[in-house]
């Protein structure tokens, strides 16, 4: 019966090739294989090591198996050899995996030791990231007005080349902070203070993050972004975030009408903060400099006017299950919603 033994490797090879081709067509902003920080680099080198080791073992064993299946298939006249075992062989193949595993264990242990003991640099950016159902809040220690905290949400800004130390919290259920290009995930567990290994982003760019622990209805839509930028850009952003007196929009403009919707008519200010204005609510994400955002709704949609309008008028049509924020389609007119969006989008670094 040679058929099955030949079909198996062929099939496997075809499948592998098809997948390799498929792979080439698929890259993702969330891939592990394009690291942009020292920590992600280190993880990737271990990742490659273990993948290569596992593939070699896999191919050797599958190869041996294919050989056995072909060589010892039943044929007229073949008699099975009545062997019960072989101590030497069995000891050998107990020791061989041990050696391979030791070879893997050593770098693993070294990584654990160094990453868990890595010191926070003096000039490190200190961030507390907090998970909410279903969005992220980021607080920078000491970067706020008068050395206080600076708060933003869903899009974290970091200067390139500077170490960042992130502490993780949750106010409700367990979430997980994960930016594959920058750092592996660590859970945000209520009543616990987890820390990420301090890492240094080494590439300017916009990196995608994602909540990686199932946290309820909108888990799939709990995403975020990390903007790694030049120190100058970062400083400009920080300075503008801290602006205590924001000039009022020109009276009569769409922005001014929008501001009124935000602070009075829509009651947005009860839940949202815009630093330097009267809006100081803390239930929803901080919207200071919302105009700098590339996304809306915890990283799920590009922050186009249209998407932000859709969000404000009925957020649950884009993010089913979202909590707290009311649907404004019924209480605000389309014009008012357009105005408030114009206002929000106008909040930019000049």
């Amino acid at each position, binding site marked *: *019966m040679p058929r*099955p033994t030949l079909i198996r490797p062929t*099939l496997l090879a075809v*499948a*592998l090739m098809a997948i390799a081709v*498929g*792979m080439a*067509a*698929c890259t*993702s*902003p*969330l*891939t*592990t*294989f394009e690291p942009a920080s020292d920590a992600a680099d280190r*993880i990737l080198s*271990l990742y490659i090591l*273990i993948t290569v080791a*596992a593939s070699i073992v896999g191919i050797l*064993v*599958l190869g041996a*198996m294919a050989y*056995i*299946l072909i060589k*010892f*298939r*039943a044929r007229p006249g073949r008699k*099975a*050899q*009545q*062997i*019960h*075992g*072989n101590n030497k062989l*069995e000891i050998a*193949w107990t020791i061989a*995996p041990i050696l391979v*595993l030791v070879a*893997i264990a050593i770098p*693993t*242990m070294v990584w*654990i030791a160094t990453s868990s003991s890595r010191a926070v640099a003096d000039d490190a950016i200190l961030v507390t990231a907090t998970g909410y*159902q279903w969005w992220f809040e980021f607080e920078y220690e000491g970067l706020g007005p008068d050395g206080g905290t600076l708060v933003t949400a869903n899009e974290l800004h970091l200067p390139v080349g500077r170490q960042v130390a992130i502490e993780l919290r949750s106010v409700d*259920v367990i979430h*997980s902070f994960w930016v*594959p290009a920058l750092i*592996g*995930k*660590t859970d945000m*567990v209520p*009543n*616990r203070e987890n820390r990420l290994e301090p890492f240094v982003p080494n590439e300017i760019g916009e990196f*995608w993050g994602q*909540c*990686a622990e*199932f946290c309820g*209805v*909108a*888990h*799939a839509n709990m995403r975020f972004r990390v903007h790694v930028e030049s120190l100058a850009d970062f400083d400009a952003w920080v300075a503008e975030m801290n602006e205590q007196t924001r000039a009022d929009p020109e009276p009569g403009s769409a922005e001014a009408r929008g501001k009124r919707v935000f602070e009075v008519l829509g009651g947005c200010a009860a839940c949202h903060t815009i630093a330097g204005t009267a809006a100081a609510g803390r239930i929803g994400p901080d919207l200071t400099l919302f105009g700098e955002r590339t996304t809306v709704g915890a990283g799920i949609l590009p922050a186009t006017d249209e998407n932000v309008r859709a969000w404000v008028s009925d957020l649950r049509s884009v993010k089913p299950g979202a909590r707290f924020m009311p649907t404004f389609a019924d209480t605000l007119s389309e014009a008012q919603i357009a105005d408030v969006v114009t206002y929000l989008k106008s909040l930019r670094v000049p």
Partner: protein
Amino acid sequence: MVALANIGLIPRPVHPTGVWSWLTTVDHKRIGLLYGFTALAFSILGGIESLIIRAQLAAPNQSIVSPETYNSLFTMHGTTMVFMVVMPAGAAFFNYMVPLQIGARDVAFPRLNAFSYWVFLFGALLMNFSFFVGAFPDIGWFGYAPLTTNEYTTTGATDYWLLGLQVMGIGSLAAGFNFAVTILNLRAPGMTLMRMPLFTWMTLIVAFLLILAFPPLTIALTFLLFDRFFDMNFFNVSAGADPLLWQHLFWIFGHPEVYVLILPAMGIVSDVLPTFSRKPLFGYPMIVFAGIVIGFLGFGVWAHHMFTTGLGGWASAAFAGSTMVIAVPTGVKLFNWLGTMWGGSLRFKTPMLFAVGFIAMFLLGGLSGVMHAVVPVDTQQQDTYFIVAHFHYVLVGGSIFGLMAGLYYWWPKMTGRMLSERLGKWHFWLMFAGFNITFFPMHFLGVIGMPRRIYTYDADQGWAALNALVSAGSLVLTFSVLLLLVNLAISLRRGEKAGDNPWEAPSLEWATSSPPHHYNFAVVPTVRSRYPLWDEEANVVEPPPLPPHEEPHMPSPSYWPLMLAFSIVMLAVGLLIWQWHALIGIGFIVVMMVLGLRSIYGWVYEPPAVEAPAAVHAHT
């Protein structure tokens, strides 16, 4: 004694056929079949759930189901496949085969065995009943706190989930004790431990795993029950609870559970390979020993499911180490299986194909498992589709392929009829292809960052093409399972007669008729070697069936296991009623407690069956 035993008791049931005979049976073979059919039925349900999941994910931004429904689907798919398919399928085989393999007439506690089945079935039904009251569990099969607490779950779905699991757990515990005692005490003369077939050995280990692994789950579920029903604070984070308590308890159960799912399959493969290689198992003592070591180490690796929870350096290192260590006995088994085939005369009948497929697929699952023992790598893989790929290689490519090998191997023994080899081969190859097309690309999806348990994704996340491929693969996989069902149906109607030992296999279950008489062996065989039917055929060959009056006296059927199981599940229902209306609930619970106590009383003092005329000997 007789007087006491008979006080006001319902006579024992005596139906040899029909519905009542199944409801009251205590015959391990019938109970095995019940487990088997139940597993099959639930596998269809779990399969449909997974197909809807794959439909939803086949393309970006689809809304075939709502996020709530999607969450229920993956929760129930996981819970169903683990607790209502793979576990009972393993139980089906160890119920049916273990007494036969050790030359016993039944298990040690036949009524307890029936009770295990009924309580399992009722727990499973209770959990699925939630669907009809619009509260299908949606918190994941792992039910992480605090998402399961009252604060974050608005429906009663979690109550059904936890009560259903709790009730099913009772069945697993009872089965664990029953089979440990059976295997240790009821072996035929000469059947020393080191002569037992490997499937029996692995069942013995599984029995101990069940006994030791279910209590932590029971405790966790009890805590949750108290939180949800009586406002306690085990997992209430607003009152300061540490939700990791749940994770530790769950995975102390959960990891050994993995071995509960895989060891029976390993046992089956270790029995199938020698039969179809025509030579003894290579390194029998090593395979047994490796199984025992896996059983022990299985309790020391749980926190590898928690590497990303902030365990700290020491705990991460310890659990990474133990997880790598457990790969060694697993590797030893694998090499010994290859050694078994080496030098053999391999016959590729369907059971053998599945056994070989098992080795290959389980190897891949094992290797990806070692990959995430490397903690830094796990921080990238944890909760992505890489993990989904990994455990489907272990649980489908591993457990289910192994169970399929068992099904094709033992079906002739259980039904007396052969399955079609042609259809069997088609089934295997389609399943093999479908399985790999479905699950291999998931490794890549994980690498490119697709998280688990998301009901939707965007085109710009770059996961669309592979997801489409995966969904297509799941159709092939489904089709292959349909072929199996056709094969089973055809075999039952007009399958070729099997004979006692169609595969020329070496172990005792093949010494009796197919299907076996209800008393298994007319004369309990004496065993002199590890492969009795190869080494000493003459000694163990079954004499012709006995005339009825000479049949061995077998345990009589009983109503009580069914009644007791029913009252236990109704206690759980009582809690649900209590939530809705305290007084009615308490009343209901009291009634069910009375019924439960009555059942225990009836069970303990059950009189012997009133057998037709020959009942006299019962009174001696």
